[in-house]
């Protein structure tokens, strides 16, 4: 095999992984801070795709910008969903409380969102067909899909912004404190419930933005989430449950493995590669790539 061909596989894997990474950090954030396994994450991504689509159709906004513009409304939506539903079943950060209730709640939310969208917007797939979706940057012998390259860059920027927010700002530190020790955080005057709402809002906003980026080259339909939700969970567990950098790396690794698997296995077994890699990582490092020992899976 020519080196250029191998390089093409690597580049493709990286670009595909970039958006997986952004999807996954939202999920990791929600789990890391709230201990909530959000099965509806993929559905919020789907809603993000639709919002970006309507931005593009109604206002002529480019999907890359649309993805960023979907962050504020989805942050608010996340706060509302948390206040209305999740706050009732997640108790003050106590990880042992009512895990089953929140699992059922997020699974139910997922079903309701998918089916309501199918009913209201019909199952007809919609597409933005951005002009750069089927164009490529030629770098030597390599071809980099333009839509995926832009999405990758935007995903990288957003992930960096979230990381900076969590490590550099007071609110970010309060969020992490609420995650590490809810009780002690409460003694320090941090409102753990509010922090959970903020975490959920950010988590939803990030996945909606990832959906917006995806919408620049992927058709939008009510059930699009099923194609991605499993990969998101794999990325989060691979990276170490709840670790933000871990989820980011996990997403990238999945993209790379999906792409490089094709060098060894037939196309039909593309995702087998992902799960084999997943099992190997968990066997060698049960806590995931970036997880702490205490959070052994």
């Amino acid at each position, binding site marked *: 095999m020519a080196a250029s061909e191998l390089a093409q596989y690597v580049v493709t894997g990286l670009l595909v992984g970039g958006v997986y990474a952004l999807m996954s950090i939202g999920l990791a954030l929600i789990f890391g801070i709230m201990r909530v396994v959000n099965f509806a994450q993929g559905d919020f991504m789907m809603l993000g795709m639709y919002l970006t689509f309507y931005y593009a159709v109604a206002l002529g906004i480019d999907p890359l910008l649309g993805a960023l513009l979907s962050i504020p409304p989805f942050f608010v939506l996340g706060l509302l969903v948390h206040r209305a539903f999740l706050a009732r079943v997640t108790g003050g950060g106590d990880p042992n409380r009512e895990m089953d209730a929140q699992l059922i709640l997020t699974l139910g939310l997922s079903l309701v969102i*998918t089916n309501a969208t199918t009913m209201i917007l019909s199952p007809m797939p919609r597409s933005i067909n951005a002009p750069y979706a089927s*164009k490529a940057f030629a770098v030597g012998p390599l071809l980099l899909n333009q839509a995926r390259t832009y999405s990758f860059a935007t995903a990288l920027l957003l992930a960096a912004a979230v990381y900076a927010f969590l490590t550099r700002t007071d609110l970010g530190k309060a969020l992490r404190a609420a995650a590490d020790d809810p009780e002690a955080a409460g003694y320090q005057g941090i409102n753990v419930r509010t922090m959970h709402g903020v975490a959920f809002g950010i988590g939803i906003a990030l996945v909606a933005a990832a959906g917006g980026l995806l919408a620049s080259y992927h058709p939008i339909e009510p*059930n699009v989430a099923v*194609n991605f939700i499993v990969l998101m969970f794999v990325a989060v567990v691979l990276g170490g449950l709840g670790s933000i950098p871990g989820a980011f790396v996990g997403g990238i690794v999945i993209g790379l493995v999906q*792409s490089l698997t094709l060098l060894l296995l037939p196309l039909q077994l593309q995702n087998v590669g992902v799960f084999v890699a997943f099992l190997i990582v968990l066997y060698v490092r049960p806590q995931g790539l970036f997880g702490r020992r205490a959070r052994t899976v």
Partner: protein
Amino acid sequence: MSRLTRFLALTLALVLLAPMVAVPVAVAAEDVKIALVAPLSGRWARQGQLKKMGAEMAIEEINSQGGIKALGGAKIVLREADAGDSVEKAVSAAQRVLTREKISAGIGSWLSSFTLGVTEVAERLQVPWLTLSYADNITERGFKYTFQTSPVSSLQAEQALDLVVEIGKKNNRPLKKAALVGDNTAATVFFFKPLREKLLAAKGIELVADEVWTPPLADATSIVQKLRATQPDIVFYGATNFPDSVQMLQKLKEFNVKTIIQGVGAWLVTPEYVKAIGKENLDGIQTVVAAHPLKGQEALVKKFVERTGEPFMTQDPLCTYAHVWLIKEAAEQAKSADPKAIREALAKIDLTAGPAATTLYPGRIRFDERGRRVGAIPIIVQWQNGEPYTVVPTAVSTRPLASVK
């Protein structure tokens, strides 16, 4: 007798007498129930929606024209069940809809893999089942209640290959290299199998790429890279899942791979492709289907377009429309809404006129002992300027075949 006792006695008498008065009327106009098991959610929901549109249009026509005359003007009602996105869901949907009440006949379930499961339920419960699915093995299991109106996949492969080879010769661009690209759903599998095993070799065509995946496809780059490297003259194409197909076609453009694309199935001619790919990129893409509007069906298409707001009509609503009319004809001939009687009528039917026969080319409906429609011929449809037209058979084509640039 106290007032209460008298009231109770009167009520009881009414309850007992009511059926005697009501029965003759009720029997005369008892609805004939048709089940439609199709994907109404999940990744093939759009196809289910299109099928439903066709069924509803036929039912409205039949009922407004006086229903089933042999049954005293009985009306047809549709009982739809969601086949979802897996064979298990499709089977349990069929089970539910067929056991809940008396169903005279059923239609479905679009994806061959679903139909294989659903027809097992129909066979067990002895309800005649009409399907547009292509896979050969649907009618290779000795089932008595399954009726397949479409030409089977292997036949479609044979005829599509003959046609493209002929066109290649005529245009002085003989086909030397071919690729198979598609998912592993049943209809595609049966289309590719004979091509891979014997047909291509028999025509002296080399198979240079054989790429099959399980939907969804993560990324199409590796496939298109192979196509770019091997440069096939034609790609036999079976990506039934819309996002997979869009990715593939976008990538072909991105990598500037120029080749003839010969699809299998009506999923490749749905209106949403125009928005997703752009009509200039669709031009020339052709696909083999079981039905498509023919010359002379303009009024039907116009009615469908006005009714549904869809830009054009394709195989899925057309076939379901024909299926409902076919069940109506069978019920007329059987003079019964009983599923077994309708099965007998379907097995013996020989229709050469009416909406069902004119919709399914070549205009005659009868079934062999396996339940396959005798003489079913595939139709080749080609995208031209953002709309799919019937190009073969030429006798009923709505546009001449355009050569691919």
